[in-house]
């Protein structure tokens, strides 16, 4: 048997103890991280199961209003045109809201199911932005907010500017940002929209001058089902899906979303989206050495 000196033995023992301690420390660190993630996951699941009761108001209230007004109109054949047109406007506003909420909910469901497909085409951005702003005009009017649109895109020989992207996705992103700006910017009286082309990226900026978001909450607002004010005292409409859908949709288009905001200093969302590449679908594999079969 090999003789081992006491010194060597002690050193070896010390080394092994240190190694053990290090491993334990590392394990503890991992355990702590796991605990945090576990908490987050169960929070998220709890929020999800509350979802149905959360969106109850969002879906039920407009629907009840639509049914009520329509019923009134049906049962009364002696209403003057002015009242009819006023009530039709109310039905439209409620149905518009319902449609908008449902679109966002379905978009979230599609993203979570992995069923997002891009439909790339040449899109007239100016028309899309103006049309979306126009469709939100009635809400802005009600909240007494003025939407200022500043679109400056290069014209192509008198033709409207066309950008290769998915028009429905851009609409989803922009309408959610705009709706948020109207909802949370109402302490002031205007919203600034700026659309530019920078380094071949489409940049859409939506700026409101309302309640703003505390720096500490900047990450949180992109989580699903999260609204910073919640519970019975909740002052704002919505289901807390909008911004998580916006963020994920922008990622699909390989763009970025930047948020500048502080409490009580308004919100500035800046979206930057690169032009989509035409898919090289029909590029078949050449029979070079590089190719392999599995």
């Amino acid at each position, binding site marked *: 048997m090999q003789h081992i000196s006491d010194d060597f033995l002690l050193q070896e023992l010390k080394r092994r103890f240190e190694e053990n301690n290090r491993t334990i420390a590392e394990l503890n660190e991992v355990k702590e991280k796991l605990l945090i*993630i576990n908490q*987050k*996951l169960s*929070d*998220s699941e709890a929020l999800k199961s509350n979802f149905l009761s959360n969106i109850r108001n969002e879906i039920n209230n407009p629907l009840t209003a639509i049914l009520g007004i329509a019923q009134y109109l049906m049962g009364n054949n002696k209403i003057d045109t002015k009242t009819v047109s006023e009530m039709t406007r109310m039905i439209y506003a409620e149905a518009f809201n319902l449609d908008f909420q449902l679109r966002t909910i379905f978009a*979230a469901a599609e*993203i*979570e*199911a*992995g*069923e*997002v*497909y*891009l439909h790339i085409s040449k899109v007239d951005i100016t028309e899309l932005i103006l049309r979306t702003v126009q469709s939100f005009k009635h809400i802005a009017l009600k909240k007494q907010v003025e939407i200022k649109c500043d679109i400056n895109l290069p014209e192509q020989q008198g033709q409207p500017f066309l950008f290769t992207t998915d028009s429905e996705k851009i609409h989803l992103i922009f309408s959610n940002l705009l709706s948020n700006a109207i909802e949370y910017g109402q302490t002031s009286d205007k919203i600034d929209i700026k659309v530019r082309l920078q380094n071949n990226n489409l940049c859409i900026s939506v700026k409101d001058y309302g309640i703003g978001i505390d720096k500490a909450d900047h*990450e949180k607002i*992109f*989580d*699903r089902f999260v609204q910073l004010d919640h519970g019975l005292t909740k002052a704002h409409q919505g289901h807390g899906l909008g911004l*998580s*859908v916006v*963020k*994920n949709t922008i*990622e*699909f288009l390989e763009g970025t979303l930047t948020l500048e905001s502080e409490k009580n200093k308004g919100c500035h969302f800046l979206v930057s989206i690169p032009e989509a590449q035409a*898919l090289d*679908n029909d590029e078949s*594999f050449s029979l*070079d050495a*590089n*190719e*392999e*079969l*599995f």
Partner: protein
Amino acid sequence: MPLIKEHYLYGGAIFADPHPYIVSTVLGSCVAVCLYDPVNRMGGINHYQLDLWNGTGLASPKFGNIAIQKLFEKMLKMGSRQSDLQAKIFGGASVIGNSQNLFQIGERNCEIAFSMLKELNIPIIASDVGGNHGRKIKFNTETGIVLMKYVNKK
């Protein structure tokens, strides 16, 4: 010969269809798991960017643990039996110039695929993972054959 339909798979999406398709996708540090059912001659594929969902944002299939589970469920829903399924794994490169490189995201993306498929008892009959090159793959969902070549993208 009838033309086979084509589909381009984006990151964070899943594609599974009982009809024959050629599904193509481009992978850097992302990983794609192809599941093939030789009995019903159909398949499905995912393409995820990160390994684990940590509870922030949407629980979307851009995370491996969600993408693999959802793809597996889709195959069962289409009528596959778990014991018939075969898997092929591609991607997970550590592409130079990618800042995510630091966290060995490619490696972690592969690990989750191997461990989850083992847990699901699905044999991995082929894989080409790691390395420094991106990959472009074309998966024929009818035959289960995957054509792959290295690219310098992503």
